């Protein structure tokens, strides 16, 4: 398994997608602190925690990376060589899950460092009274790590399930970025929101939304949010490995 994970990292390193998507993640992290700071919003530690938690928005980037991790192999038919050398689809998918979870953690580390580098001097200059060890800031940052570690796996699962790159990326991103919020706005349907990926993410990393009504919907507690994300990460991956990846490769 270790050599499969090493091979997955080598696959990533030998193409350039990871770099461009990392730039995307850095841009998201930078904007999510520059925006509030330039607008003068953060007044206290609670606001700062919310700001740091918003690095979790980079989940879209790591999701795309995960989708590409599987679908690129189908698109360019490198999947043939991959499964010839590793006939067990479980082994292939498990190696990818480990790889992309580690990758998500690495991305999270970069995102958090970018945010700290921008925000700490700025907050100090503004004289905002906060402490990195308090007011839910460690919680928000930990949430970012957890969300990004899991969302590569969500992407892999969707990729393994769908196999078609264009469909998986576009449908996945539209669902995550647009449709979930549309669902939240529709009476009746809105109650599924806490169980959708974004509902899970906000339960984990959005320290203010957790305590609010969102259009009359309450988010799950943190543990519930983690459970929701774990389900979104593992159920598609397991179904994908068991069925979709196992279909004839022609």
């Amino acid at each position, binding site marked *: 398994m270790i*050599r499969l994970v*090493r091979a997955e990292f080598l696959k990533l390193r*030998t193409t350039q997608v990871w770099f461009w998507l990392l730039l995307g993640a850095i841009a998201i992290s930078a904007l999510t602190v520059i925006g509030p700071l330039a607008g003068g919003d953060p007044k206290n530690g609670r606001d700062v925690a919310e700001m740091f938690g918003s690095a979790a928005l980079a989940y879209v980037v790591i999701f795309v990376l995960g989708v590409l991790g599987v679908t690129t192999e189908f698109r*360019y038919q*490198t999947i*043939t060589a991959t499964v010839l050398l*590793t*006939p067990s689809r479980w082994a292939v998918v498990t190696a990818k899950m480990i790889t992309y979870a580690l990758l998500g953690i690495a991305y999270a580390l970069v995102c958090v460092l970018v945010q700290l580098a921008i925000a700490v001097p700025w907050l100090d200059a503004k004289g905002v009274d906060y402490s990195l060890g308090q007011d839910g800031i460690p919680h928000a940052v930990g949430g970012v790590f957890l969300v990004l570690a899991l969302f590569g796996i969500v992407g892999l699962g969707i990729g393994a399930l769908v196999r078609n790159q264009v469909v998986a990326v576009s449908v996945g991103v539209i669902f995550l970025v647009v449709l979930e919020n549309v669902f939240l706005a529709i009476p009746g349907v809105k109650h599924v929101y806490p169980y959708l990926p974004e509902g899970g993410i906000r339960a984990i990393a959005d320290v203010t939304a957790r305590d609010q009504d969102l259009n009359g919907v309450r988010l799950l507690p943190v543990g519930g949010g983690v459970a929701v994300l774990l389900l979104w990460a593992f159920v598609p991956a397991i179904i994908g490995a068991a069925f979709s990846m196992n279909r*004839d*490769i022609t």
Partner: protein
Amino acid sequence: MSQPAMDGRIVVDQLTKVFGGNVRAVDQLSFTVEPGSVTGFLGPNGAGKTTTLRMVLGLVHPTGGRATIGGLPYRQLHEPGRIVGAALESSGFHPARTGRNHLRVLATVAGLPEARADQVLDLVGLRDAARRKVRGYSMGMRQRLGLAAALLGDPRVLVLDEPANGLDPDGIRWLRGLLRHLAGEGRTVLVSSHQLNEVQEVADRVVILNHGRLVRSGSIAELTAGTDSVVVRTPDAPAMHAALTGQPVQVDQTDPATLRIRGLSVEQVGHLAYAGGVELHELRGERFDLEQLFFALTAAGAQPPVPTAAGGPA
């Protein structure tokens, strides 16, 4: 390595694949590929060659029957990359990855040292292109890279789907030598092709497929034995027919002046013409080669499977 007793024999047994409920791509196909030989796997496009190879390699699930390599289905092989090397037409490369990096990835998956990547690149003559992205490779270079990938694990068994496609004449000559060399080392080499003359020059045995069914299998010598013919051109065809009367021959008249005679040697035909006083403008022997056999066997598509020659599906 981990299976020292494994002999590398490929056994295809009653293999059947039905696509979409009614398309019988492969139909009760049985044949054996022996170690130490190059076996040509022949058939027109759509005959089911690629589907068969994909079932042998565990990429496509058979509807019926089974295929084994060294006694085991592919997916049960331990460290398959060190036992079987495969180059399939549709196995691809990431266009943004270099040829060398493609092989490094595969070597890592297979647990092989990365130095193997450079060794096989040298072997297939891609050293100079190793650090270029596959995007810029010609068809022939991609074929060579696919072949390099197949050779990476120093496998006992090679399964190559149309490896000569896209190679220039030099490349084809080189490939022929490589395949002979690999078979000479005792490896099992199964090569699909529709380029029959290529196969005839390199293969010891052939398996001929049409409409998913076995048409014929055996050594080339067996399959073409007794099929040589003598071509005679004469201004007096009726006299030549008369001269052949009573001989155990099969005569086809291809045009008013040309007869094709099977069952006699050139000398025998020449003698009969001389004895019968028939004027000849041409007298020559024609080897009935694999290509002709192939067309004869697969013609019109309605041909039922012919009983196999001696040494057929074992």
